[in-house]
């Protein structure tokens, strides 16, 4: 009797375990069908580049929300897995290894900026990943890795991309400027931009009268600006990061440095806080840009994007207008999403093949990738700050304050030349 009792208990327990296992496996099965597609990346959320990293992340999150509202990719929801790379390239290999091996992400994109993309390249090549780079300059020039694509519109020749429009504009002015001063920070992007500028100076037959670099931690730019004023150049090309862009511009006003054409590759003047703080001091500067609210730049979907971005950015304390990087970060995700949907797969090679062969329609216009994964045709804009008054942010929301001067097909205004005329 006792034995029988035990046996029945054993049967009951065994049966319960079997049912539980069956239920669990069924549960696992249904869970797999709705498993999210994980897209992983490191992003500069603290450190020097976080002023751009955070807005980029916000744009990517908006894309994720948009996609999930429409039912996700391949019927699966999308999940972003990201870590703070602290603007420190040394953290990048660890972050991506963890995401691939522990978090098991399906796809990756890069973090923001040239220096943070560089350490990702060897990992991407070793693991045969498809990578969309977010604003890196010439990262694939040496590797020529076929499954790398770059969302910034610098085009097939990244080194000269910043300076091309600037010097073409210079060459068109009447009377034609003759002498050029070059100045930039001792850091990767400015150095590359200066290499490009030197090549273009040769091509256009200008004469270089000053060509120097400075350490990025410089506090006072007055001595540099004075040295430039002493050689009296017609054109001043500056390749700088945000603190130096502000420092150079303030010093130029204090010293009354007034070349005929001033600007080129000054990073930071595109940021909302810098624009509103510098106000009229920006007038006359001809600088590169990627997106401005001009009629020629209103691609389908871009206004909807800003309608979502700007209120969220204000709440999170990141770039309020978000014209510089966010639309491109969103577009990078659009490219990846469209490639997944069209190739009906999360296979790295199939996605890369599709991206290489296709022209994409995104909120920053049509994108076709070419040599080294850069845009087949570059589209770095040259804009000029005109009639900026006071520090009101509203003035920058509409057209007219930063008309596009270059390229011709997107032109929305005329240059005020020389620089001094724009200051009046």
């Amino acid at each position, binding site marked *: 009797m006792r034995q029988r009792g035990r046996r029945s208990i054993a049967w009951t327990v065994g049966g319960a375990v079997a049912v539980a296992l069956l239920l669990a496996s069924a549960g696992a099965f249904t869970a797999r069908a709705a498993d999210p597609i994980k897209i992983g990346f490191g992003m500069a959320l603290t450190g020097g580049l976080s002023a751009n990293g955070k807005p980029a992340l916000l744009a990517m999150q908006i894309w994720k929300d948009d996609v999930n509202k429409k039912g996700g990719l391949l019927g699966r929801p999308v999940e972003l897995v990201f870590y703070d790379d602290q603007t420190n390239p040394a953290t990048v290999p660890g972050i991506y290894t963890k995401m691939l091996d522990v978090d098991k992400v399906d796809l990756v994109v890069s973090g923001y900026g040239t220096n943070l993309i560089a350490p990702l390249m060897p990992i991407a090549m070793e693991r045969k990943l498809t990578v969309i780079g977010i604003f890196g300059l010439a990262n694939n020039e040496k590797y020529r890795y076929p499954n790398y694509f770059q969302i910034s519109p610098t085009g097939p020749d990244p080194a000269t991309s910043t300076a091309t429009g600037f010097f073409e504009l210079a060459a068109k002015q009447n009377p034609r400027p003759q002498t050029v001063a070059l100045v930039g920070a001792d850091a990767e992007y400015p150095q590359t931009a200066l290499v490009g500028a030197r090549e273009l100076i040769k091509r256009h037959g200008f004469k270089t009268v000053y060509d120097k670099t400075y350490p990025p931690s410089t*506090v006072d730019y007055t*001595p540099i600006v004075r040295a430039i004023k002493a050689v009296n150049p017609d054109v001043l090309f500056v390749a700088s990061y945000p603190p130096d862009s502000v420092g150079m511009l303030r010093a130029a006003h204090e010293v009354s440095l007034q070349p005929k054409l001033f600007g080129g590759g000054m990073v930071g003047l595109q940021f909302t806080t810098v624009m509103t703080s510098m106000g009229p001091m920006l007038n006359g500067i001809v600088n590169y840009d990627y997106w401005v609210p001009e009629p020629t730049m209103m691609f389908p979907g871009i206004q909807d994007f800003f309608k979502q971005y700007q209120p969220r950015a204000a709440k999170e304390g990141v770039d309020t207008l978000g014209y510089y990087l966010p639309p491109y970060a969103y577009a990078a995700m659009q490219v990846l999403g469209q490639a997944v949907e069209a190739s009906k797969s999360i296979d790295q090679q199939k996605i890369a093949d599709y991206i290489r062969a296709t022209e994409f329609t995104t909120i920053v216009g049509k994108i076709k990738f070419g040599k080294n994964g850069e845009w087949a045709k570059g589209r770095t804009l040259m804009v000029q700050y005109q009639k900026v008054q006071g520090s009101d942010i509203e003035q920058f929301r509409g057209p007219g304050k930063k008309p596009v001067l270059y390229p011709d097909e997107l032109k929305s205004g005329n240059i005020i030349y020389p620089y001094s005329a724009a200051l009046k």
Partner: protein
Amino acid sequence: MFSWELLANALVAGLLLGGFYTAVSLGISLIFGLLDIANIAQPAFLILGSYAAYVMNTAFGLDPILTGVLFTPLFYGLGVVVYRVYYGSFERRGEESLRGLVFFFGLLFIIEVSLSLKYGVDYRLVQAAYIGKSIDLGGVGIAYRLLVPCLVGLAMTLALYLFLGRTFYGRAIMAVSQDGPALRLMGADPIHIKTIAFGIGIAAASLAGALLITIAPVIPSTDRDYIGRMFAITVLGGMGSIGGTLVASVILGVIESLMGTFFGPSWSLAVSFGILLIALAVRPAGLFGR
């Protein structure tokens, strides 16, 4: 490219920069130089001062430097609290050397990250009537943006110099830096004196932070640019010497400016630190060290 006018301008710009560097380094000269506390977090208090100036400037249109002055009691209080925690947790137990360093490192990151979370990571600037304007004195241009911080830096130096030399508490701070136990025998409490000195050091950093944001835009991680400069100036000037801090700051400022004008700004920091190394080889105690 050489001209006397350019040289005069470079020298003046260097002096102005030196005045600002003095303001930045006075606090650490007191804390590291006199109290021997390796407060790595000092530049974070500098940036905290910058953000105080930024917040008051954007919210109420208050002048950044006036904010800096008004906020000094608050930062003095903050310094007192930080020192009390540091003393209670490390110094009292004789664990200040390595663990204390880790404590200040942690503090640096906490301040930096808190600022990032509260105010975001955008570059912050302030508005003031004198920013972007300059006066011309016989061909030598002086930017108000640099002149005002320089004058404030000099005033701070003078005030601290007089305080340390002429007042009871000032002399007590000098005494505690030389011999704490002896001070105790005289009936004074070295911990109380050190607390006051630490508070003053943090207040000085916060005021210098207000000067910084009038000169250049600031983000929470700007503090890292100043760690090297602050400690280099303190060591070059001679540990704890207020006059030495002023002289070392001016030397660094003038070298940076001259290099920037005549030889290429790339070299300015390398030459400044080269001179620091040579000075230390010749005078290991620094220029005015005891």
